């Protein structure tokens, strides 16, 4: 255990890096999910195609390949990105593509009568979308978005392969320098698990908040 104690700052740095990447990439993923999800529902065909191409490309390519491509291939085209920036971009874009389908599915699953009532009250399509459909779709998005955030957290382990000093990277380094295997990897295991629990808790909280705000708390 003394090994862990001595290496505590190394682990802490790794955990902070992992958390930072998770938060930044999640924010990018949610933004992309909304953009592409709404794009898929747009009445304008070019927007729908653009969204579809984005979703299919980033869902269809392995995340590791996206990371490597952005980090090792883009420099050949004169684009050199910081490893952390690369990590956030790849994780955010890839998970945003999955999230887009969550957004689209949730909006489409709002009962059709709601759109009809909005039409009968003469809301424009945009007004109906933002005031009536999306507010009702968000509570449905939260559980799958929570899943997505945890998937994203776990996928951050891959960024150690493009030289980012995240939690997994620190564990690998410690294993190689100290020749100890059990301790570093057990700490890493616990570290990811704890962050995942925090994410789960945050999404539970958000669910409770939205449900209360949607007037379902009293039921």
């Amino acid at each position: 255990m003394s090994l862990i104690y001595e290496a505590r700052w190394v682990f802490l740095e790794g955990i902070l890096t992992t958390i930072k990447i998770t938060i930044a990439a999640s924010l990018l993923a949610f933004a992309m999910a909304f953009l592409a999800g709404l794009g898929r529902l747009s009445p304008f065909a070019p927007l729908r195609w653009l969204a579809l191409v984005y979703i299919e490309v980033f869902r269809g390519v392995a995340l590791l390949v996206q990371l490597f491509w952005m980090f090792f291939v883009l420099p050949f085209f004169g684009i050199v990105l910081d490893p952390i920036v690369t990590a956030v971009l790849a994780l955010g874009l890839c998970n945003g593509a999955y999230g887009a389908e969550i957004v689209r599915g949730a909006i489409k699953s709002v009962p059709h009568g709601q759109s009809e009532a909005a039409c009968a009250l003469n809301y424009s399509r945009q007004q109906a979308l933002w005031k009536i459909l999306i507010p009702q779709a968000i509570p449905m998005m939260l559980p799958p978005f929570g899943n997505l955030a945890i998937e994203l957290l776990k996928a951050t382990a891959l960024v150690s392969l493009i030289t980012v000093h995240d939690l997994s990277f620190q564990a690998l380094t410690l294993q190689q320098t100290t020749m100890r295997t059990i301790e570093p990897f057990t700490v890493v295991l616990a570290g990811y698990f704890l962050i995942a629990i925090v994410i789960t808790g945050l999404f539970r909280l958000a669910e409770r908040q939205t449900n209360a705000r949607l007037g379902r708390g009293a039921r």
Partner: protein
Amino acid sequence: MSPIIKLTNVCKSFGSLVVLDGLDMEVAQGEKVALIGPSGSGKSTVLRTIMTLETISGGEIEIDGEALWHMRRNGKLVAADEAHLRKMRSKVGMVFQQFNLFPHWSVLKNVVNPLRTVLGLSAQDARARAEELLALVGLKDKLNAYPGNLSGGQQQRVAIARALAMRPRIMLFDEVTSALDPELVGEVLNVLRLLAHEHDLTMIMVTHQMGFAREIADRVLFFEKGRIVEAGKPDKVFTNPDSDRTRAFLNAVLQG
């Protein structure tokens, strides 16, 4: 006087299923019309096409002397754009069988938000108008309740207040008591009775409440297979119909 609603040879099909089969129908301003007939006869579809919830496959609908699905541009008749449809929709309101209140908003906000968003009323004006209409339907004490906490009858009365607040010239009622428990039907019918006294308001009701149709309608239209089989004053249609089909339908319904 020219009719406020005029359907000419309106056709509507869902795939190979013909729902409206060359329908001609006119409604005068201020008239209260009840549409009756077996399910699948196209009654609800008539309302839904007037509200632009369904397109039509052929024919013409005019509201207030203006084509619903077409507009004039440079002297030519072209398909209506969104702006034209929105202008036409502002003349029509609709109440649905399933209420379709917005569950994420309080009763008050259900009525206030369309006034603010669609009509651009100020917060005070919208609230005043909403309270007035919610009082009319007897729900002044439920302003802050959420739809999920109301009975079906209360929800439907909110839906009626919400539609009326937009001040449409035509109100469409699509089987508005069919989803209600029997003991809650009366409170909704009472609101409709109240509206029937509004001289200028044109009302079209699809209903299975024959007694109610007879009581408040100026005219009853009996639908079958996407056409009007019989039309006339309620007393005539209900007691001495011309068509055997109407007679058979009424016998079946009134005995049940």
